[in-house]
């Protein structure tokens, strides 16, 4: 009896692993393997075309001590993350709240607002953005109606990052859909009870909606941080593809790409990639560690 049970267990496990095999092969061959490869390359001088030459930690040392571009690209990326993540989440939340007011044809609105999220990362949209914000583009024509002469948004180092942030905020759709689902999960009796107690709308929002939504906010925040740190396409397409003007679009990933593929220094680029991994990991874990203070699961796990 016992034997039969065990064999059935092993049998089941084997089949499971067999079915997992394609994924496992993909994971080891296409994810873990290349990652280890890049870890090795980060310790070498590798110009893409000749065999790598062992350097030890020299790449890392140079990055931290003698690379001006490294700090500049970090600064640009941080600035972008700092603006785009909160703005996008606030915007998504506001739209979700508006859509939750019981308007008709909700499904259509939800779909329409979701579309930018699907398109936003593409090169085509980045090019459209370029046109809209160009010196003689749509935005400046609009401002011209009020007699305002707008600057060349995409070719001035002080403004170009803000147009890229706008592009990211415009892709609020996926965060919005998740918020909307979260809002719909909040039991209506909480609102009814608070209404009886005389709470106004604003108080309801801060005391009920936000705490009940905190797991969703947590999820959106983590995904937002991870995605924004890896921003590449808008910098490459809206900027001049070399980080210009004046390094104002030199996102970390763009710098990494230039180092590896344009400047023939793949070892250095691999080292940059590992530093990025550690930075993203660091920020994500900060969010996770602090989450116990502000995320409310409503299932008794909170409130310690």
């Amino acid at each position, binding site marked *: 009896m016992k034997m039969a049970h065990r064999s059935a267990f092993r049998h089941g496990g084997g089949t499971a692993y067999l*079915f997992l095999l394609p994924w496992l092969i993909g994971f080891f061959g296409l994810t873990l393997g290349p990652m280890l490869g890049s870890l090795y390359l980060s310790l070498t001088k590798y*110009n893409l*075309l*000749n065999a790598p030459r062992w350097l030890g930690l020299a790449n890392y040392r140079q990055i931290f001590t003698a690379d001006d571009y490294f700090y500049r690209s970090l600064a640009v990326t941080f600035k972008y993350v700092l603006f785009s993540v909160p703005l996008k989440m606030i915007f998504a939340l506001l739209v979700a709240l508006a859509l939750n007011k019981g308007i008709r044809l909700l499904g259509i609105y939800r779909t329409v607002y979701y579309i930018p999220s699907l398109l936003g990362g593409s090169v085509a949209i980045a090019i459209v953005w370029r046109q809209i914000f160009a010196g003689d583009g749509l935005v400046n024509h609009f401002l011209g109606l009020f007699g305002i002469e707008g600057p060349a948004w995409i*070719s001035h180092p*002080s403004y170009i990052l803000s147009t890229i942030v706008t592009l990211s905020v415009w892709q609020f759709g996926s965060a919005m859909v998740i918020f909307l689902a979260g809002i719909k999960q909040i039991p209506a009796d909480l609102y009814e009870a608070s209404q009886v107690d005389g709470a106004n709308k604003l108080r309801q929002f801060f005391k009920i909606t936000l705490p009940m939504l905190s797991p969703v906010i947590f999820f959106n925040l983590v995904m937002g941080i991870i995605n924004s740190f890896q921003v590449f396409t808008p910098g490459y397409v809206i900027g001049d593809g*070399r980080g210009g003007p004046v390094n104002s679009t030199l996102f970390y990933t763009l710098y990494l790409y230039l180092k590896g593929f344009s400047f*023939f220094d793949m070892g250095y680029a691999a080292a940059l990639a590992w530093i990025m991994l550690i930075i993203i990991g660091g920020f994500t874990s900060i969010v996770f560690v602090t989450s116990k203070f502000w995320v409310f699961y409503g299932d008794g796990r909170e409130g310690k």
Partner: protein
Amino acid sequence: MRRHLGVGMMALLLAGTTACSGGSGNKENAGAAGGGPETSVDQVELRIMWWGDQKRADRTNEALRKFEEKHPHIKVIGEFAPSSGYFDKLNTQLASGTAPDVFFLGGNVIDYSEKGVLLDLQPYVDKELKLADMDKAMVEYGTLDGKLVHISAGANARGMAINTELFKKAGVPVPADGWTWEEYSRISQEISKKLGKGYYGTYNFTVEGMDIYLKQRGKQLYDMGQGKLSFEEQDAVDWFNYWNDMYKKGGIVTPDLQVSNPPGDTSKSLLVTGKVAMSLIPSNQFTAHQNLIQDTLTMVQVPRGPKGTGVVFESSQGLSGYAKTEHPKEVATLMNYWVNDPDAARILGSDRGVPVTSKMRELLMLDASAQEQIVYDYTNRVSEATLKEPFAVSYNPPNFTEFSKLAETAVQEIGFGQKSVEQGVADFYNGALQIFGSTP
């Protein structure tokens, strides 16, 4: 039974994945496999890649079809990319071992020859590849470290393209060869002033003109033999100051316009839209510019310095073979067609520069259009000038991409007012020392 089914399905799945990966892995070699023993006809497939616009692509593809007609056993697949992304693409393909059999390179040929990825064409000379008619200097240009790795596809000389219509409107006479930088600056300001808002005398050519300026002073960007920077910081200070003064006096395009409408992009260049009167261009780009604007353009030599103009009639770009190509003979045949075949010359024209063999040059000059005549006339004047005041042909220094980004950033930092000229140049010079000091 269920277990057998599971294993069977697994095996099937696995077979599927390996078959797929095998298929994609062999894609580049598909042509090669076609040339194997199992097919009777010795069919060969070549890939070639170049940079440029759609017009160039149309011409090039037409020339390739003609080549296939003449060599029925060779099939050529063309790929192209705009110049901005071309080298990133090529580098990626070289790194993964999937580079085309033939690709175009410019002055950066040295970057690739150093890394040993270019095919040595010497064994095919006088067999598949005939160079008897080719200019000696061009053969030498393509010979690096004793190996022939590059066949020039055209020669050009940089010069000032001038919109004569804007000069007429401003009431300024079109300058003649032999003018100086002072005159250039004065004329630019005059045109900007007379034509009013939105019109400019010239683009900012601090970066593009730097090597010319240094040569005019008897120096150069980089000494290939000694492997180091070959100018002083003071040279750079003078040069940057010259442009900054001109900018302050209103003679040149504003920095943000230079970013959004870079001079090198014919589809956006303000020369083409009739807003800028003078632009430094390679002579082979002249017709491309003229085709896009009604106003009549002409070409004048760049302003001269103490030692002359510093501009040489030299290779604009050329063909190199991939060291790992499986069909070196066919690669050589294709290159031979490119430089020696009258049909190729007629189809390709002088889009990549004036042909490098005397016979093809004569052929094209016979039925040159008025615009092309301007280019031939201009390059002849440059050739004559360099007879009196010779300058060495120059390759791009190694790490040139990194260097030009550095220089461009410095110009923009100064232009957008983020740094003073002194500070900007100091940072630029130190950065340049660092870039050229690093060995590949």
